C-alpha cells in the first residue's frame, strides 16, 4: 500500500493504483474527460495533468502509477494554466448549442469550465463543421460537433460489450465517431455510451428532448428487470419517472446496465397503472377505496378458511416483490391462516438460466431467489400440479395472487389469469391494469400495489446478495405494498401516519411536497 501526498493531504492507495485513482479515493477534485474507472486508460484528453515532485514535465494522472512517497499536486499555477488551456482546446470547436443540448445541466464541459476554466475565449476563427443528428441505431443519436473525441464510447464497445460497432474515423480535428453502414449500434448495452459520454454527443432516443435534467430529481434504487439486480439511479419529477441510469457497484454491475433494464421505468408511470381498488367480475366492476377493497377481501378470505379449512385458499407469488413483503405475507398466510398452499409462479421457466455473459439474465424477476428462500423459511413448497388439481377439483375456493409488477416480462399472464380465474374468488394484487383480468368470471378484488420505486425493501440477486433500497417517489397514492395488504387482510388497521397522502388523500399524488416523505 504505497502512500502519497496529494495537495498536501496524505493518501494511501492499493499497489498498482494510478494517481487519478488516488485523487478519487482522497476526494480531491481533478479535471478529466477520457478516463473512466470501468474502461482502459486512453490518456487523450490531457486534462488530468499533475505536478509530481522531482519530475520536470507535468504528467497525466490517469497513466502514472503511484509510487511510495510521491508528492503530487494539481494546484500549481502551471497545472492550472494547462488545465485552462486544455479546456479551451476542447471548447474551441465545440458548438454553443447548450440550449438545445440534452446534456446541458449534467455536462462535463459545462461543469469543468465553471470549476477549472473560466478563461476569456480567444478563438475568433470558424469552428470545424461536422455532422449533426446522426442516427446510430435504435437507441442512440450522435452529434459529431459536440463530440470531444474522448473515445469512451469506442472503448466501451471494444472492451465491455465487445461488439465493436463504433470507431473514430478520419484524423485530426476532422475525426468523427461513427458506425459503419449496415452495422448500427444495436446491442443491449448501447445506452451505456450515452451515460459515459461526458458531453451531449450521444443522446438517448428514449430520453432525448423529453425533459431538462435540472427538473429531475434522482433516487437510488435497484433495477427490477432481471435477477442481476443492477444498482440504478432513477430520475423523476412530479409527472413520473423519466429514465434509469446505472449506479456504481463493483460487485454487481460495475458501472453499467442493460438497455432492457432501462425500460423498467415505463410500467411505473401512471399510464397503465391500477389507481385504486376494484371489486367485481366481468361486466360489473366497481371502483372502491383500496383499504375497503383489501378489508373486504380479507373478510372473504377468513370466511373461506373458516368454512372450508385452510386448504381451500391458495397464495400465488411471483418473484417481483421484496423480501420483507414475502415475509409479512407468508407470515400471515402460513402462520395465521395455517395454509400451506403457497405456489411460485415462474414466468419463463425455460429461460431462467440464460445469461448474456455480461449482466442480463433470463430470469426476469428481481427476487426469485428471495422468494424461494422465503418459501423455504416458511416451510412451504407448493407444487404447481397440486394447485392445478385443487382448482380443477374445486377444492381451492379462493386464490390470492401477488401478480406481476412488470407485466411485459410475463408472457404467460393471460394464460395464468384464465387458469387462476377458475377459482370462485380471486384476490389479485398488482400494480398495472390488465384487460385479461377484467374478463375473469370469478369474484375478484383488484388491489393496486406499489412498484419498486414506491417502496423500501430488499431484493436478493441471483448470487444471493441481498440489496436493500429506499423509497424513491410515489406515483399512485392509493397503492399498497404486500405487507400493508397482509395487515388489512388480517383485519388489522394500517398505521396511516407512515403513508404519504393519508387515507382519504388524493387518488393520484401530483404534489412533490409529499414525495419521499417516508
Amino acid at each position, binding site marked *: 500500500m504505497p502512500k502519497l501526498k496529494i495537495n498536501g493531504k496524505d493518501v494511501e492507495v492499493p499497489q498498482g493504483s494510478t494517481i487519478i485513482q488516488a485523487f478519487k479515493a482522497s476526494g480531491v477534485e481533478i479535471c478529466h474527460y477520457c478516463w473512466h474507472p470501468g474502461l482502459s486508460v486512453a490518456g487523450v484528453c490531457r486534462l488530468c495533468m499533475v505536478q509530481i515532485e522531482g519530475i520536470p514535465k507535468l504528467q497525466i494522472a490517469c497513466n502514472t502509477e503511484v509510487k511510495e512517497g510521491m508528492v503530487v499536486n494539481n494546484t500549481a499555477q502551471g497545472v492550472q494554466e494547462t488545465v485552462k488551456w486544455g479546456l479551451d482546446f476542447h471548447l474551441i470547436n465545440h458548438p*454553443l*448549442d*447548450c*440550449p*438545445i443540448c440534452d446534456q*446541458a445541466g449534467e455536462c462535463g464541459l459545462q461543469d469543468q469550465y465553471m470549476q477549472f476554466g473560466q478563461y476569456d475565449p480567444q478563438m475568433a*476563427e*470558424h*469552428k470545424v*463543421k461536422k455532422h*449533426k*443528428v446522426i442516427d446510430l441505431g435504435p437507441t442512440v443519436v450522435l452529434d459529431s460537433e459536440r463530440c470531444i473525441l474522448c473515445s469512451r464510447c469506442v472503448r466501451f464497445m471494444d472492451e465491455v460489450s465487445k461488439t465493436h460497432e463504433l470507431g473514430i474515423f478520419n484524423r485530426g480535428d476532422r475525426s468523427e465517431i461513427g458506425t459503419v453502414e449496415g452495422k448500427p449500434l444495436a446491442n443491449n448495452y448501447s445506452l451505456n455510451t450515452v451515460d459515459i459520454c461526458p458531453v451531449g454527443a450521444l443522446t438517448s432516443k428514449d430520453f*432525448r*428532448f*423529453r425533459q*431538462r435534467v*435540472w*427538473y429531475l430529481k434522482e433516487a437510488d434504487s435497484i433495477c427490477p428487470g432481471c435477477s442481476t439486480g443492477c444498482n440504478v439511479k432513477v430520475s423523476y419529477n412530479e409527472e413520473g419517472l423519466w429514465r434509469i441510469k446505472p449506479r456504481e457497484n463493483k460487485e454487481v454491475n460495475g458501472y453499467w446496465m442493460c438497455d432492457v433494464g432501462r425500460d423498467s421505468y415505463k410500467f411505473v408511470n401512471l399510464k397503465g397503472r391500477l389507481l385504486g381498488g376494484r371489486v367485481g367480475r366481468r361486466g360489473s366492476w366497481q371502483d372502491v377505496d383500496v383499504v375497503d377493497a383489501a378489508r373486504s377481501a380479507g373478510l372473504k378470505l377468513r370466511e373461506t378458511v373458516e368454512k372450508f379449512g385452510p386448504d381451500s385458499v391458495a397464495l400465488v407469488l411471483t418473484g417481483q416483490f421484496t423480501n420483507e413483503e414475502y415475509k409479512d405475507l407468508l407470515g400471515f398466510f402460513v402462520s395465521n391462516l395455517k395454509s400451506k398452499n403457497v405456489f411460485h409462479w415462474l414466468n419463463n421457466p425455460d429461460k431462467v438460466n440464460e445469461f448474456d455473459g455480461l449482466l442480463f439474465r433470463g430470469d426476469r424477476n428481481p427476487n426469485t431467489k428471495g422468494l424461494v428462500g422465503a418459501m423455504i423459511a416458511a416451510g412451504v413448497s407448493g407444487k404447481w400440479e397440486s394447485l392445478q388439481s385443487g382448482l380443477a377439483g374445486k377444492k381451492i375456493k379462493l386464490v390470492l395472487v401477488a401478480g406481476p409488477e412488470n407485466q411485459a416480462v410475463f408472457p404467460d399472464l393471460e394464460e395464468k389469469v384464465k387458469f387462476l380465474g377458475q377459482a370462485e374468488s380471486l384476490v389479485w394484487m398488482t400494480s398495472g391494469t390488465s384487460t385479461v383480468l377484467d374478463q375473469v368470471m370469478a369474484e375478484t378484488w383488484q388491489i393496486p400495489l406499489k412498484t419498486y420505486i414506491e417502496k423500501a425493501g430488499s431484493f436478493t440477486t441471483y448470487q444471493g446478495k441481498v440489496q436493500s433500497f429506499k423509497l424513491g417517489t410515489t406515483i399512485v397514492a392509493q397503492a399498497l405494498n404486500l405487507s400493508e395488504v397482509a395487515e388489512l387482510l388480517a383485519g388489522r388497521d394500517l398505521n396511516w401516519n407512515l403513508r404519504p397522502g393519508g387515507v382519504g388523500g388524493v387518488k393520484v399524488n401530483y404534489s412533490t411536497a409529499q414525495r419521499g416523505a417516508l
Partner: protein
Amino acid sequence: MSLVKRPDAKAEWFLPGILAGLWFTLKKMLWNLFNQQKMQTLNYPEQKYEYGPRFKGNHVLTVKKDGSIRCTACMLCATNCPAQCIKITAAENPDPSVEKYPIAYEIDVLRCVFCGFCEEACPVDAIRMGPEWQTAALNGSKFTYDIQQLAYRPQLKGGVLSVLDDQERHQAGI
C-alpha cells in the same frame, strides 16, 4: 363599516350630501368640457395610453425568416420564470439543422407577473415582451396563450422576425 343597522340610530337626511356630490360632478364635467387638454383621464377605450417602447406587455414568440417559430425549446424561460407560468413541450424537428423545437408553448397570463425574466433568459431572442397590454377576455381558458396566439396572433401581422438567425450564425462559423 358595518351594514347592520343600529336600532338606536336616528333617521338621517341624505339630500344635502347628494346635492353636494352632484354639484362636484357637474363642476368637474363643466371644467373638463372647456379644458379638454388638461383632463386627467382618458376616454378609454376610444383613447388609449401610449406606453414607452420598453413597456413589458404581452409576450411575443418571434419567428424565423421562413415563418417557423424561433424557439428552440431550451426551457430556460420556463426555468427562470418566477411565476412558473410557462409550459413547454419539446420535440424533435424533422429538419436536422433545427433539431429541437416546441410543439406546445403555453403561457398562463393570469399567473404571469410580467417581470420579463423570460425574455432575459432566452438565448436566441425567441420570446419578447411586446407593447400590447389589453388582455381582456370573456373566457378563462383564453388566458392560456398557446403558440398560435403568442407567435401568430393577427396583431403581429405574420410574426415578429427574430434577430438571431441560425443559418447566418452557422455560416459565420459560430
